[in-house]
């Protein structure tokens, strides 16, 4: 069977002898042989014995409410060597039904209706066939949910799942906008959507473009093709890293920047905008990436760098003028004037999101009733704060607020097996952002907050233009991976204050092996941990690149620390070691 892509490339989907290659006859014969050799009588006797010994009450309890944490044996659910599930876990009647209806079915249905809503199946299909990341990630979405929600029950299951729903919806909206405006998918023509879309580096906040959201849209270049795909299917990004290195880039620069460059090398970003806005966030590698972006995109580009010594009062004016320069650039290039009222509307709406974020932090810090998993907290926070004000975030926050209120008023502890309250510091492994779920299930390590959640912590005043600009400047200076990592060592060592504020007794210290900024303070952290007698687990990783340190190796490092230093026993020993290298 021959298939033709948009670029008229021919792909042979099946070879002639593919049916033969499956060796169905041999497989059927082997199965038959196995059946013949089975002693069914003995099997039946064993089963009867088992039933006889069962505690009916306990069975009923487990069926209705799900097994107690220590008896779940979640590791047994994995198909050996794959990291895929044999079946989803039984969480008790209510939670399993909720998972099936309100998470699995609800989200699958919305993944279809969202496509219909934002551009239709034809556009989505064209995109899936043209862009590798789309083709590889769409159907793996529910496994992303499964990984992040493993072992959760009750309110934690519900609240965390709503976060995922928000991210999926906004991802679909963004890539559908990309596809609808894409010149490549529209016969090489620049349509109206192309003319009315602003593309920007994913580290440039969506807040910058509020003034055009009534007529235009802004979509980050790499947010979906690179960042989201890392979480959903961690195999996809490897190709882009290799592509960047194939043109001569060394292996040691930050693999995030490499991957961001790689999608341009492979021409795997839709051509959806006449302009591009770049930034120096978060590091030297980001600056380097923009050189490559310019080379490949070859269209009007505005660089909007943030100052490095950002809490120096003297730098603010400079930064404000750069933001205004960006606004002028968009006006000149697109002929569309910035709408101040529109800016105010979105900035004020975004403040509502920030207000709720503060409430969440407060509950996480001071009570045991915070119902959101570490991974849901981390991903949702970075996702919405980078994207800026959108309806879906308000919808999700409303749902989550109701759940949190219930937890607080009814004193529901969603993570009752917490042994240690953990703060995660520095940049997280994107291919294993759900380590928090595993760490709680296996060891009772409850990740309360992470460094990147604490970024963008700035209310946006709108009473005057000057105040608005001042706050927007601060907002952007405190962007993810940068607020703590640049501008002086005092920022990165705020860890101690946040540990205290969030009542944490342990640090999961992300050790991004290619992050020069964090490697450059490694020894000082070691000294401080010893001096302050703080338990810190160094978690080595290479951001999106699972080949450097695998998920399994990460788990082994945590296991070793928990056994040898903490002298603790796992809550669920089946999760200590399993091979999920081939998993999404």
């Amino acid at each position, binding site marked *: 069977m021959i298939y033709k892509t948009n670029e008229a490339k021919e792909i042979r989907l099946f070879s002639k002898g593919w049916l033969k290659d499956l060796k169905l006859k041999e497989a059927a014969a082997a199965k038959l042989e196995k059946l013949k050799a089975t002693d069914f009588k003995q099997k039946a006797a064993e089963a009867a014995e088992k039933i006889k010994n069962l505690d009916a009450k306990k069975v009923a309890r487990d069926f209705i409410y799900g097994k107690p944490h220590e008896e779940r044996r979640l590791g047994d659910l994995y198909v050996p060597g794959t990291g895929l599930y044999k079946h989803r876990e039984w969480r008790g009647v209510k939670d399993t039904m909720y998972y099936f209806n309100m998470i699995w079915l609800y989200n699958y249905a919305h993944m279809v209706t969202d496509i219909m809503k934002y551009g239709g199946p034809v556009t989505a299909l064209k995109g899936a066939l043209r862009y590798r990341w789309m083709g590889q990630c769409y159907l793996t979405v529910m496994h992303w949910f499964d990984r992040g929600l493993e072992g959760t029950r009750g309110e934690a299951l519900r609240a965390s799942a709503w976060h995922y729903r928000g991210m999926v919806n906004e991802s679909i909206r963004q890539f559908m906008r990309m596809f609808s405006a894409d010149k490549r998918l529209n016969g090489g023509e620049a349509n109206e959507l192309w003319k009315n879309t602003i593309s920007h580096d994913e580290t440039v906040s969506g807040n910058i473009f509020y003034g055009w959201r009534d007529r235009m849209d802004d979509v980050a270049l790499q947010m979906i093709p690179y960042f989201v795909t890392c979480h959903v299917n961690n195999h996809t990004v490897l190709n882009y890293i290799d592509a960047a290195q194939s043109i001569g880039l060394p292996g040691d620069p930050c693999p995030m*920047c490499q991957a961001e460059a790689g999608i341009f090398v492979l021409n795997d970003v839709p051509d959806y905008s006449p302009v591009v806005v770049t930034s*120096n966030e978060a590091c030297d590698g980001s600056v380097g990436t923009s050189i490559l972006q310019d080379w490949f995109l070859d269209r009007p580009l505005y660089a909007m760098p943030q100052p490095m010594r950002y809490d*120096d009062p003297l730098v603010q004016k400079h930064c404000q003028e*750069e933001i205004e320069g960006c606004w002028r650039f968009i006006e000149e290039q697109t002929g569309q004037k910035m709408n101040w009222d529109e800016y105010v509307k979105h900035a004020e709406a975004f403040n509502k999101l920030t207000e709720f974020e503060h409430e969440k932090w407060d509950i996480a810090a001071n009570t045991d009733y915070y119902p959101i998993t570490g991974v849901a907290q981390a991903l949702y926070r970075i996702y919405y704060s980078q994207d800026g004000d959108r309806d879906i975030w308000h919808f999700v926050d409303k749902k989550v607020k109701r759940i949190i209120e219930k937890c607080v008023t009814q004193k529901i502890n969603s993570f009752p097996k917490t042994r240690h309250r953990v703060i995660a510091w520095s940049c997280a492994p994107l291919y294993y952002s759900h380590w928090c779920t595993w760490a709680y299930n296996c060891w009772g390590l409850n990740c309360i907050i992470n460094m990147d959640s604490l970024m963008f912590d700035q209310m946006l005043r709108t009473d005057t233009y000057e105040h608005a600009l001042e706050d927007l400047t601060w907002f952007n200076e405190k962007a993810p991976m940068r607020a703590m990592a640049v501008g002086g060592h005092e920022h990165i060592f705020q860890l101690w204050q946040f540990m205290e504020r969030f009542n944490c007794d342990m640090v999961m210290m992300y050790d991004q092996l290619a992050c*020069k900024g964090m490697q450059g303070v490694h020894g000082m952290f070691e000294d401080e941990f010893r001096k302050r007698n703080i338990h810190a687990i160094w978690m080595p990783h290479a951001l999106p690149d699972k080949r450097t340190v695998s998920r399994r190796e990460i788990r082994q490092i945590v296991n070793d620390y928990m056994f040898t230093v903490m002298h603790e026993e796992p809550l669920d020993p089946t999760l200590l070691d399993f091979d999920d290298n081939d998993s999404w």
Partner: protein
Amino acid sequence: MRDLIHIIEFEDLLQEAGNDLVRQAKEEGKRALGYTCNFMPEVLLDIPGCFSVRLRAPRSTSPDIATYYMTNRTCMYGRCLLERAMEGGFNFLDAEMATETCTVTCRFQEHLQRMDVIQNPDFFCEFTDVPFKKNENSVDHYTRQLQAHVLDKLHEHFGIDVSDEALLKAIGEHNELCRLIREIGEYRKLDNPTITGREFQIIQLVTQVCPKYLIMDKLRDIAEQLKTREPDEKPSWRCKVVLAGSEEDDPDFTKLIEECGALVVADRHCYGSLPGREDIVVKEGETPLYAIARHYLENSQCPRFMEQHVMRDRKAYLANVAKEYKADGIVIAQMKFCEYWSYERTIDTVVLNRDYGIPVCSIEKEYVNNAVGQLRTRFQAFVESIELKKLAQEQKASGGEA
């Protein structure tokens, strides 16, 4: 060629950061101000009462303690500096005028701030924010930063006169030094240059790490001698190259390239003279400080700049340097773990060859250059490829077959 006057003495001065001239200036009561990056204008640190020292860690071996602090996955230049500081090699410094212009040197300087590394009671370390663009907004910003974090601090800590008059005097002396370096560097443009790349690099480095007022006479002697210096009748080189790239303060590396037959005729790297040794011009209506800020932003070719036209012009600049200095190729050397130059080198390697027809030898190296054997092979092969290319062109021109 006959030995260049003072070159042996200059070589000796490069053997340690706190060299004889640094000690002499300190004994004369001047303040030693360290810096690592070209974005800290040395002219500001050379105002009366002070002298600038661009930090190097010559004769480094294995930076073990610094590797504990910064791991072995960071640029070795930064680590060697930290190691040298911990060994006491920078105790002569009265201040470190720091910039957050690349991550690892920034972290090195933060170690000086946070840990009690420099054993000098007067020592302080102050950071300046450096913009990523060359526009007017950036020049204004940079001017404010230099005023607050360099001049005000020097006055506050050491009572240094930072008036416009003092700055103008420093600019005058700086321009005189630049004029001499440019004069010396001009001999590299000859068909048969009368100065080697290594000799020039030694001279250039000495101007960066020694009190300038103590070497001016020696530079004049060198410039004088070069007027009559005769090249070897039969050149020892087989082709001429530009050395471009990141931090490079090791004359032995240039020597290695030249031993392979490639004469280094131009230096466009962090410690090079192109750009860096142009006159600072104070235009009408400008303050001296503003002129300095504008000069350092306008002239820099650092890959840190992000404006679209600047990113593109950098390639043309490098191609023009190669043309002006009659170079046959470009060696782009990047310090391992330097993120800026990882990307810049990758693109230069493609663009300079494809768009300008200039052969490029693209390498990655460590600060302590232990990979001499491998690099020698690379350079020899590069020289041979240039020779073959020339041969082919000659044959083509004479109607023969390539």
